[in-house]
């Protein structure tokens, strides 16, 4: 009885994790190597790399890969940089810090799909109206752009903008608390020695919070590679048609939806994504470790 | 309820592979008489807390037996032994008031022992009265001082009328003044309830002042058991002699030669009994009497006057410790010479064998 008891407490967790995490993990590898899997009859032709070949040759996948990479390369550094600036600002002001912090955190708790719709409206150009953003652009002397159905770079701009808007709260929060936890005496000592503000920032602040910055960059990469619902929120569920699909979007499209019913292709794509994320994370970790020495 | 420990041993297997097991309690064999307060004393890591955990049932003995009166409780789980346990950190439930904390053990009773609400309240009040914390019954632990929290913890241990009360360093988290007061309080409660009580401490003064008997431990091995004063006066070995007493006993390299204890080249005490050999000589700080013509001389370093007593800090070429401390009562603030002579009180001088460090008996030869 005594021996069994701990396992009784653990049983639900083990059961759920085993069934919905460990088993699927094994299964996804199997799927990805089963060629010509038919989900209706649950049969397959053979074992091999065909699924990977198919996915890597699929122009939709190439498009999704390209979109995701652009998104990652733009938003991760940008959002981390802006978050750092805002966190520095928050930590230097004497009043209203709590108010600003609360406002800045708001996007974290909102429904991505719902607010995405608002962004779409703000950027959208319709037959009746140029939309608010275009109004500002023309007001400033520019010419209106069709952000939602227009050129690729304009759509990518909206996607990046919305992504940054969505991911900033988390980063601001983490960096603000990292900055606040730097020992005040370090700053005092530096000030007494007449250290310039810039030098204090580069020689004290940045090294002290660098573990958190690296943490944010790594999680930022992982998160951005998995981008999907922000794109759906802006461009609708048919992302391939909009040319704005992401890798995760491709996986789901393969699994279900208009072009769906191909769990094998989805599995291969998911494993390719996993490999990419793992590689990038390892590179990040190597860089951050070599920075320490 | 008398407690008997019968060849009790507790062995922990070592986590680092290849190293020997740790024997926290090694072949304990003693009896705690009914209704007495006994102090388990030793430096940290000597196995005293393990002994307490074995008595409470929180840990299982590797071998040996534990008896409460005529009951063999060796294999009983803690809740069936009827022990009350008080911790150094009080271990009060932080989210419950003092009253709820004290009531907690009563709510665990099942079956025929189950109490009604009124009975519980009555028992809580009784226990609270005993430790005099009625006023704080509705406070949470964090609103109480350390001393009050410790009283609540004692009340919680007492409320279910245990057969044995166990106290694990109950005073160590209190500041010096509270410690004195709570110490007396524990003594009073113990005498009122007549509970057999085991009290673990590393503080020899604490143990000496309230225990009926003390047990001195080292490295899992019991060194000596006895009434505090007896142990102090007749330590069985050098460790016990050094562990008891504040300031500690002064230890010198010396020898027995031609019927005398010799330190350096001074025959400090004429004795009979032991053969000639190298020994450690221990002299209690209060064992010195200033006497210019005395047989023993030390080099004065400084004088500290503390109220009644004067403490002479001195050095001696044969001393084992950093310096020696001598407590005397000086009538006037006499200027002492830089080399001070002493006579020694025979009962305050102990000799220990060089190899075993065990006490060597001797008798004083009256000088004519």
């Amino acid at each position, binding site marked *: 009885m005594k021996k069994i008891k701990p396992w009784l407490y653990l049983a639900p967790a083990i059961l759920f994790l085993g069934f919905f*995490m460990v088993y699927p993990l094994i299964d996804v590898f199997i799927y990805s190597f089963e060629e010509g899997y038919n989900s209706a009859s649950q049969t397959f032709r053979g074992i091999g790399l065909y699924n990977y070949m198919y996915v890597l040759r699929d122009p939709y996948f190439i498009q999704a890969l390209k979109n995701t990479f652009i998104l990652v390369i733009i938003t991760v550094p940008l959002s981390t940089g802006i978050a750092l600036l805002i966190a520095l600002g928050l930590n230097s002001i004497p009043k209203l810090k709590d108010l600003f912090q609360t406002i800045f955190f708001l996007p974290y708790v*909102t429904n991505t799909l719902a607010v995405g719709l608002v962004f779409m409206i703000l950027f959208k150009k319709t037959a009746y109206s140029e939309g608010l953003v275009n109004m500002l652009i023309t007001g400033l002397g520019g010419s209106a752009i069709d952000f939602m159905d227009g050129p690729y770079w304009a759509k990518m701009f909206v996607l990046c903008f919305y992504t940054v808007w969505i991911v900033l709260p988390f980063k601001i929060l983490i960096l603000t608390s990292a900055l606040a936890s730097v020992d005040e005496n370090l700053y005092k000592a530096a000030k007494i020695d007449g250290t310039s503000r810039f030098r204090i920032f580069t020689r004290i602040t940045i090294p002290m919070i660098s573990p958190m910055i690296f943490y944010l960059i790594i999680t930022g990469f*992982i998160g951005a590679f998995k981008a999907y619902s922000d794109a759906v929120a802006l461009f609708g569920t048919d992302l391939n048609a909009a040319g704005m699909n992401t890798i995760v979007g491709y996986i789901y499209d393969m699994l279900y939806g208009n072009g769906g019913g191909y769990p094998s292709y989805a599995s291969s794509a998911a494993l390719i994504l996993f490999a990419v994320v793992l590689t990038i994370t390892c590179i990040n970790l190597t860089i951050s470790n070599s920075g320490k020495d | 309820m008398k407690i008997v420990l019968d060849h009790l041993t507790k062995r922990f297997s070592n986590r680092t592979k290849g190293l020997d097991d740790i024997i926290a309690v090694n072949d304990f064999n003693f009896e705690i008489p009914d209704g007495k307060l006994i102090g388990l004393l030793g430096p940290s890591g000597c196995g005293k807390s393990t002994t307490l955990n074995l008595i409470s049932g929180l840990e299982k003995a590797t071998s040996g037996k534990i008896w409460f009166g005529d009951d063999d409780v060796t294999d009983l789980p803690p809740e069936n032994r009827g022990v009350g346990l008080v911790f150094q950190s009080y*271990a009060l439930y932080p989210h419950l008031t003092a009253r709820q904390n004290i009531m907690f053990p009563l709510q*665990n009773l099942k079956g025929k022992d189950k109490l009604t609400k009124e009975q519980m309240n009555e028992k809580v009040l009784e226990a609270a009265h005993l430790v005099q914390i009625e006023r704080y019954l509705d406070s949470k632990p964090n609103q109480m001082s350390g001393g009050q929290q410790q009283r609540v913890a004692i009340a919680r241990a007492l409320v279910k009328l245990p057969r044995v009360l166990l106290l694990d360093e109950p005073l160590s988290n209190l500041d010096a003044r509270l410690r004195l007061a709570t110490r007396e309080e524990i003594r009073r409660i113990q005498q009122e309830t007549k509970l057999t009580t085991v009290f673990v401490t590393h503080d020899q003064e604490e143990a000496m002042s309230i225990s009926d008997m003390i047990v001195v431990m080292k490295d899992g091995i019991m060194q000596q058991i006895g009434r505090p004063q007896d142990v102090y006066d007749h330590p069985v070995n050098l460790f016990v002699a050094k562990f008891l007493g504040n300031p500690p006993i002064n230890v010198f390299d010396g020898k027995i030669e031609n019927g005398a204890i010799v330190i350096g080249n001074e025959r400090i005490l004429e004795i009979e009994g032991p053969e000639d050999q190298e020994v450690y000589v221990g002299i209690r700080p209060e064992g010195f009497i200033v006497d210019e013509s005395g047989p023993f001389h030390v080099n004065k370093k400084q004088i500290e006057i503390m109220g009644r007593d004067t403490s002479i800090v001195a050095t001696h070429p044969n001393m084992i410790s950093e310096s020696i401390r001598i407590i005397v009562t000086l009538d006037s603030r006499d200027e002492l010479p830089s080399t001070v002579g002493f006579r020694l009180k025979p009962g305050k001088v102990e000799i220990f064998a060089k190899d075993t460090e065990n006490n060597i008996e001797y008798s004083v030869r009256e000088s004519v």
Partner: protein
Amino acid sequence: MSTNNDYLSIEKKARRNYLIRNIITYTLLGIWALVVLFPFYWMLLTSVKSYGSYNAEYVPKFFTLSPTLQNYVDAFTQVPLARYFGNTLIFALITTAAMLVVIVLAAFAFARLDFKGRNPLFSLFLSLMMIPNELVIITNFVTITNLGLRNTFTGLILPSITSVFYIYLLKENFEQIPEELYKAAKVDGTSDFKYLMKVMIPICQPTIVTIAILKIIECWNSYVWPRLITDNEKYFLVSNGIQAIRENGFGRENIPAMMAAVVVISVPLIILFLIFHKKIMAGVSRGGTKG
């Protein structure tokens, strides 16, 4: 000596610099606050503009003089918004409650009970934290489909009942409760389960509440899994509902009504946030991640 004057001018300069820096900082923070808040303002504003007046605006107006609640009426009558809302509420509450039971039991076993293989098992649990959802969702989709649980609450809820991260968080919290409390309870004959219920859970209540709130937020915003597993609008959650409304509710161009729906589904979380913002932010900064 002119030192006095020098000090005065240095002081003056320092004060001016400080003032300028503050003004710049406040301005920049204010601008970002505007960027954050503006979409919320815009959705509120649009939701009270009438369909006619909205579509008549070639140049969008920043305010309206004739607010109307008609859009909210439409949102609840023309599309089953109330049902999406109710579904999400049921989904969030049941998932959160079930998850709390599972993680509390598991965290307790890891934190307090001694058993063979505890540490290896816990390491295994931790390593599961690195597994991205995208990898396992494929099989889960197939599993749930094969079990015939598509378009059921069971199918929606089952895969999200455990969270390794929250088990980890709670275990850490449980372990901070001093060992002595457990020993004291043992000596008093308290069973493990009673100790968990009467001592550990009350002491760790703040953490448990934080976890519950974070989980509710997560449920409220979940989109991918519900989208895969439901295609019957009777079981849509708000995220899927919004997507459905956008693609074929109201007629594509009734933007004010869409915004009314968006307001309705955003408000509960914003209220939750305003009440618990300290707890939520503390909880997230303790290790919550998005995505």
